[in-house]
């Protein structure tokens, strides 16, 4: 049994699986049930000034019969009174002293507002604070959430104000609705953040109903942009975590969020630099019990790898995440079709012929049976055929032994620079 405990900027939890600030952490009843189910921590549904929500709040993308490939919401922060939330946080912490409870906060970008909420929340006893600079809708129109999270100066200033009074670790939750998330992450560092978390949801419009021409979802015939999350956003979130993790100026822990649905997703985020992960959509789709498989899966993985503690996994892939200009141009892989396994569906041939490099030949053997073969010298190793192939093991991407030493684009450019006329 590996040690799954984490310590994220001083916040300890029995495992790296936290529920993200969202409907699953709306109340003490829910968070306590989540802890009973095995979640190691919870970031409480964002606390702040009173709001009102609309009905019809969620929508989801199904893809090829798979439900909830992506999830969209126009929900705001908590609509319950601060006192009620604080009482339930207190009761939950009392029942689960070893689990992490982090209060997510969002107020107007004013020093006195931040001071007030931080003091009131910390008085009740939380393990940390998460500043919600990411909610892309509703609150942003009032100058909060993503609106302030998109301006590095405001991120720095508000973090600083919180740090002026905070006694517990401060996590700054960043919006992905920005060109370069490392800029706002650096601003959080400059403001004194103890950690950053990412990502909040991505601006989105789920769809348009072709009969009524209404947006999906719509509120009495009108729509507004929402925030996108769930499995579809995982690659975007993973890149943002990786970009922050490999940036030497962002030398604080990262809490990874975005499309994490199982232990493998979680392990990938941890390898890419996250000290722990937060989950929302997967819990909303399948319920709290998914954490059991997450804990088992991560445990078995660490045991198989001979790793004693999950903390030893943190960031192991970060040195492998680089710039395009530092990739070896002389590295070569080619596609190889395993004709014993291939079912001759031709998908690979069509994809290569129509949209790649026309190097999968349709041939016939001595008995007249058709088979496919890759002309390896023309194959550029793009992976497309193996991506579209429906049969596991029918196409291998194989490494060709390198005859030339490795050379990156940057090395090439600096070498030929001396010959440039």
């Amino acid at each position: 049994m590996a040690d799954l405990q984490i310590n994220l900027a001083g916040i300890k939890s029995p495992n790296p699986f936290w529920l993200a600030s969202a409907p699953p952490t709306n109340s003490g009843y829910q968070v306590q049930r989540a802890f009973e189910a095995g979640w190691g921590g919870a970031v409480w549904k964002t606390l702040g000034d009173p709001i009102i929500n609309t009905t019809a709040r969620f929508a989801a993308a199904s893809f090829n019969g798979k439900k909830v490939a992506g999830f969209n919401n126009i929900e705001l922060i908590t609509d319950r009174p601060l006192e009620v939330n604080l009482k339930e946080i207190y009761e939950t912490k009392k029942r689960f002293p070893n689990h992490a409870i982090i209060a997510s906060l969002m107020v107007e970008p004013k020093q006195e507002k931040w001071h007030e909420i931080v003091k009131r929340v910390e008085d009740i006893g939380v393990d940390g604070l998460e500043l919600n600079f990411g909610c892309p809708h509703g609150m942003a129109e009032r100058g909060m959430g993503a609106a302030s999270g998109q301006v590095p100066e405001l991120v720095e200033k508000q973090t600083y104000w919180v740090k002026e009074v905070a006694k517990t670790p401060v996590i700054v939750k960043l919006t992905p609705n920005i060109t370069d998330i490392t800029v706002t992450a650096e601003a959080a560092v400059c403001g004194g953040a103890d950690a950053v978390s990412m990502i909040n949801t991505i601006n989105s419009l789920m769809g348009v109903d072709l009969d009524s021409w209404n947006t999906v979802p719509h509120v009495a015939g009108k729509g507004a942009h929402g925030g996108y999350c769930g499995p579809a956003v995982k690659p975007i979130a993973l890149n943002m975590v990786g970009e922050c993790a490999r940036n030497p100026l962002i030398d604080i822990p990262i809490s990874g969020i975005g499309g994490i649905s199982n232990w493998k997703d979680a392990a990938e985020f941890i390898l890419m630099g996250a000290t722990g992960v937060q989950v929302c959509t997967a819990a909303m789709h399948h319920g709290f019990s998914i954490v059991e498989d997450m804990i088992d899966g991560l445990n078995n993985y660490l045991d198989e790898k001979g790793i004693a503690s999950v903390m030893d996994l943190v960031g192991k892939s970060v040195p492998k995440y680089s710039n395009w200009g530092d990739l070896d141009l002389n590295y070569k892989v080619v596609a190889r079709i395993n004709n014993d396994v291939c079912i001759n569906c031709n998908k690979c041939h069509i994809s290569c012929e129509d949209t790649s490099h026309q190097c999968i030949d349709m041939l016939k053997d001595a008995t007249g049976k058709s088979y496919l073969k890759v002309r390896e010298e023309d194959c550029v190793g793009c992976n497309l055929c193996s991506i579209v192939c429906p049969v596991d093991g029918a196409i291998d991407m194989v490494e060709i032994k390198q005859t030339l030493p490795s050379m990156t684009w940057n090395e090439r450019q600096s070498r030929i620079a001396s010959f440039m006329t």
Partner: protein
Amino acid sequence: MSEYETFMEEKNKIDSYFDKGYQVISIFENLSGTFVDFVTGEEAIEREVVQIQLLTAEARKYIATKLLFVS
């Protein structure tokens, strides 16, 4: 001619100039590809400059790899 055959032709040219003792004196790249000037001869009077145009990406890699590690 396939992309691979074009590359092999360009590679053979590059190899043959290096084999004959030519050296690269200039490279320039524009929208039409990479242009490599080879020169031979020690004395200025004997100098012969030949230019080859490389059209394939493989050859653009190959020439730079040669310059980095071989010559």
